[in-house]
């Protein structure tokens, strides 16, 4: 086993190409589910391994409450017991736990505060707020799921585009997209290498809702126009990047995708095309990394289990 225990900490790197490819070539629904699943598995394995490194690395330190058997020479022969790594794992693990706890707490707080703000309004599904700042979002939970939209945003859209906007937000609520978003956010906190997956999932979830909205209103172009107009009105602060190097942001990519043909609901492209080959390669890499993560975790669990005097 040896250094293999450290692999789950860096193997999430192999998920980068799959995030990129899935985002571009899979149906957004498939991509969202796949990437969230991969991120969840990898984050769990990485955290478990971090915990195991910490346990093995610190078990021999004096005053440690862990069983002495865990620092037994046989265990040390089987797993890395490098004190430096073990000690470094303590703050790392603490940071992961604190970051995840904070993310969960903030998630709850934003939802609670948003529902409280709407408490005085009639309990309709759509809450229209008189505000000159254009925004719209789906607010899950509370007594019922709600769609929040401001008059400023509705004013700039035509009736068909408004229907597209509502269909988009309802799709978010119906498919429980906030759970996917929370899962990848927690994963990104657990292992920073998983951050590209979070970005990818927040894009594919929007695309998923766009496609559902296009089906609901029966026109891809209407949804594209609604997004485009809303984005131009909501402009806000431009994202700080180097103008020359900036790739098109998520909004133009969504509009471009909607102006093109609908994505096919096939699970995977054929292995005989270049895209298919790359996708399959990336998928295999991700699967192997997830498996070796799990393998390391399970092996270490059994070694420690055997070493624990019961």
């Amino acid at each position, binding site marked *: 086993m040896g250094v293999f225990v450290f692999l789950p900490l860096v193997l999430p790197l192999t998920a980068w190409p799959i995030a990129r490819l899935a985002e571009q070539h899979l149906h957004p629904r498939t991509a969202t589910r796949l990437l969230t699943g991969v991120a969840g598995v990898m984050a769990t394995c990485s955290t478990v391994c971090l915990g195991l490194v910490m346990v093995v690395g610190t078990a021999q330190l004096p005053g440690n409450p862990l069983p002495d058997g865990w620092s037994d020479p046989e265990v040390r022969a089987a797993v890395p017991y490098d004190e430096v790594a073990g000690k470094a794992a303590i703050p790392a693990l603490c940071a992961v736990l604190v970051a995840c706890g904070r993310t969960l707490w903030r998630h709850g707080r*934003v939802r609670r505060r948003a529902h409280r703000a709407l408490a005085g309004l009639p309990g309709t599904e759509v809450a229209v707020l008189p505000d000159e700042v254009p925004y719209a*979002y789906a607010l899950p939970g509370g007594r019922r799921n709600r769609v929040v939209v401001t008059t400023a945003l509705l004013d700039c859209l035509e009736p068909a585009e408004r229907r597209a906007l509502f269909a988009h937000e309802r799709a978010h609520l119906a498919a429980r*997209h906030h759970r996917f978003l929370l899962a990848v956010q927690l994963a990104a906190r657990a292992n920073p290498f998983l951050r590209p997956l979070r970005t990818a999932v927040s894009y594919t979830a929007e695309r998923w809702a766009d496609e559902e909205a296009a089906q609901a209103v029966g026109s891809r172009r209407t949804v594209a126009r609604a997004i485009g107009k*809303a984005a131009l009105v909501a402009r806000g602060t*431009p*994202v700080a990047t180097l103008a020359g190097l900036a790739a098109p942001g998520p909004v133009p990519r969504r509009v471009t995708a909607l102006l093109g043909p609908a994505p096919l609901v096939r699970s995977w492209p054929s292995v005989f095309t270049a895209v298919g080959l790359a996708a399959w390669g990336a998928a295999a890499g991700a699967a192997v990394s997830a498996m070796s993560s799990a393998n390391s975790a399970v092996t270490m669990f059994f070694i420690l289990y055997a070493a624990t005097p019961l």
Partner: protein
Amino acid sequence: MAEHRQRPRRRGQGELEAQVLSALREADGPVTAGWVQDRLGGDLAYTTVITILTRLLAKGAVTRERAGRSFSWTPASDQAGLAARKMRKMLDAESDREAVLASFVTGLGPDDERLLRELLGQSRSEGED
């Protein structure tokens, strides 16, 4: 008796209710009955203001929420505006709200605006064909 107390004239209940309501509407957010009393001038008793507010509450024209030991009052028609203000306050305070609330659109990059206008223009001309 009214002349004896030097009142200019007896005001109808509807008139008082309208005055209290308009005072509430001028307020910037929920206010106390004392604030309404000050706003309307000294010749209305505090209990009268409370009576009128309670009557308006029964009619659904105002809402109240507990603020410490007393109530703060808001005109009901302004509930949407109040909700909008509260929501803005929350959105401004939460820096990573994007992660929780799936927003319809996100910020545009430096080149995105031009690109988007091109795409929309293209879509419009195709739509007219």
